[in-house]
Every structure is written in structure tokens, then in C-alpha cells.
């Protein structure tokens, strides 16, 4: 099957039906290994056991941003090629990205209280992450407000492209401003500053969360294609009656 064939919704559905159970199974296996490694990881010399929150917080933060990045690519597909599957991909990614961003905010808050002495502070990293969550809510609301899917897709695509400005702000906020949030410690010039016994479980958990994201995204895209079929059939039925 050529990649271009996947742009056909029916062929995409066939592929999704075949791959979702396998992806789901792989996700469970990698999660089981990741959680096992996370629980066995040693405590941090400064943070103690609270470093275990990092195994949830960091992958959630990455996936919240990945979700918007994916929507940005899909937005080009919507606005430039006007491809319906790009609309479907963007719409399906929004609630999943929002959930991971919320998870990042909640786990970050629960990590911040014992380490910083506060659940929340209006520093650049936390605020820009909150802005990302609000952008997700805005784009979901937009999809729900405009009834015609193609019009909703174009409006959401424009908002997505504008909102993409927040991604580099989140990433570089810790470099551009003085923040309570620590700087980059995994992907940075000069290598990671995290000791391998903690870094490895983090990377395994990141793979597990990423697999979960793509499994859910594929399943949500399948749901959206079916939803559009239902809409088309209802319109056909209504036209036949009138």
C-alpha cells in the first residue's frame, strides 16, 4: 500500500482497524516495562522519591506539544491541499493533546509543591504551558461551534497556525526568561544532565506515552471518519424526505 493510498478514508479505516489492536498491545507491554523500571529507579540525591513524578510529567509535556505540532502540520494539509483527512487528523488530535497538556499541568503542580513549596507560579514555562491548554480548549470549542466540518476545519487550522507560536515559547521560555522551572535537562547541547539510571526509565515511559498517543489518535481518527459518514447519511436521508 502506497502512502498516498492512506489519504483515502476507506483505506485508512482498513489500516486503522488492523493496526489499532497491535499498537494497543505494544503500548501495554512498553507501559508495563516502563512502570516497572520507573518504580525500580533510584531516588534522586536532591529530590528524593518525587523524581518518580518526572516519569509522567516530562512525557506528558512532550506529547502536549507534539499534539499541537501534529495539528500544525495537518493545518497546512487543510489550508493548502484542502484534504479532508488532514481535517480529521487535526480534530482527532485536539482532545488527546489537551488531555496530555492537562496531565502535564496537574503532575507538574503535584511535583512543584514538595520541590518549590508551591503548586503554581506565574513563570514563563508554566504560563506558556497553560496557554497551550487554553488554545486546545479554544480549538475544540471552534470545532464544536461551526457545524459544517470543512468550514470548521479551515477556522481551526488558522487558529492552530497562530497558536503554534506558543510551541517555541514553551521550549525556550526557560532560556529566555528567569524561571522557577528548571532548564532543559534531557535534549540539550552537551548531552543529558540526568543520570542513566533515571534517564532510561524516563525514555521508556516517553516511548510508552508516545505509543499511547498514536494509538488513541488513530482510534479517534477512525471515530471521526465514522462520524462524518453518519452525518453524510443523515443528510442524504433528510434530502430524500424533503
Amino acid at each position, binding site marked *: 500500500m502506497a502512502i498516498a493510498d492512506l489519504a483515502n478514508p476507506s483505506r485508512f479505516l482498513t489500516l486503522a482497524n488492523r493496526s489499532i489492536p497491535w499498537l494497543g498491545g505494544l503500548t501495554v507491554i512498553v507501559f508495563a516495562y516502563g512502570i516497572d523500571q520507573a518504580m525500580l529507579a533510584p531516588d534522586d540525591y536532591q529530590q528524593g522519591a518525587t523524581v518518580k513524578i518526572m516519569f509522567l510529567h516530562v512525557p506528558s509535556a512532550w506529547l502536549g506539544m507534539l499534539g499541537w505540532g501534529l495539528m500544525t502540520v495537518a493545518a497546512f494539509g487543510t489550508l493548502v491541499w484542502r484534504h479532508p483527512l488532514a481535517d480529521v487528523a487535526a480534530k482527532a488530535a485536539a*482532545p488527546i493533546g489537551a*488531555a496530555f497538556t492537562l496531565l502535564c499541568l*496537574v503532575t507538574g503542580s503535584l*511535583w512543584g509543591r*514538595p520541590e518549590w513549596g508551591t503548586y503554581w507560579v506565574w513563570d514563563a514555562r508554566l504560563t506558556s504551558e497553560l496557554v497551550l491548554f487554553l488554545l486546545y480548549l479554544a480549538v475544540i470549542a471552534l470545532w464544536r461551534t461551526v457545524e459544517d466540518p470543512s468550514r470548521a476545519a479551515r477556522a481551526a487550522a488558522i487558529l492552530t497556525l497562530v497558536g503554534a507560536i506558543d510551541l517555541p515559547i514553551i521550549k525556550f521560555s526557560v532560556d529566555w526568561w528567569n524561571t522557577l522551572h528548571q532548564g532543559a535537562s534531557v535534549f540539550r547541547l552537551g548531552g543529558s544532565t540526568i543520570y542513566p539510571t533515571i534517564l532510561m526509565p524516563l525514555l521508556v515511559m516517553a516511548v510508552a506515552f508516545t505509543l499511547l498517543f498514536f494509538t488513541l489518535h488513530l482510534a479517534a481518527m477512525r471515530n471521526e471518519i465514522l462520524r462524518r459518514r*453518519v452525518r453524510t447519511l443523515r443528510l*442524504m436521508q433528510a434530502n*430524500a424526505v424533503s
Partner: protein
Amino acid sequence: MDPANHMGFIVAAYAATLVIVGALIAWVMLDYRAQQRTLAELDRRGVSRRSAPAPAMEQAKEQA
């Protein structure tokens, strides 16, 4: 802060993850079932995309 008190934050973080991820999975699965059920219902009424569109329309008119 006493390190023993930190356990509550760790448990809360993992519990929150379980709830949010669980809700996400449940939403996707329930949505899939709902769409399939609706499509099956429409199919039962004779409304389908490709198979016999003309009789489907006739049936829809009769039901109306």
C-alpha cells in the same frame, strides 16, 4: 518537608494520570461504539452510502 509526606504527591500524580488517561481511553472506545451503533441503525433503516441508494431513499420517504 518530611520526605514521608512526598509519597502523597507521588500517589496523587499517578492517580491523576490513571484517571485522565482512563477517561481518554473510555471516551475513544465509547465514541467508537456510538458511531458503529448509529451506522448500524441507519443501515437497518436502509440508508447506506453505496449499496442500493435508490431503495434507501424510498424507504426513508416511507418512514417519513
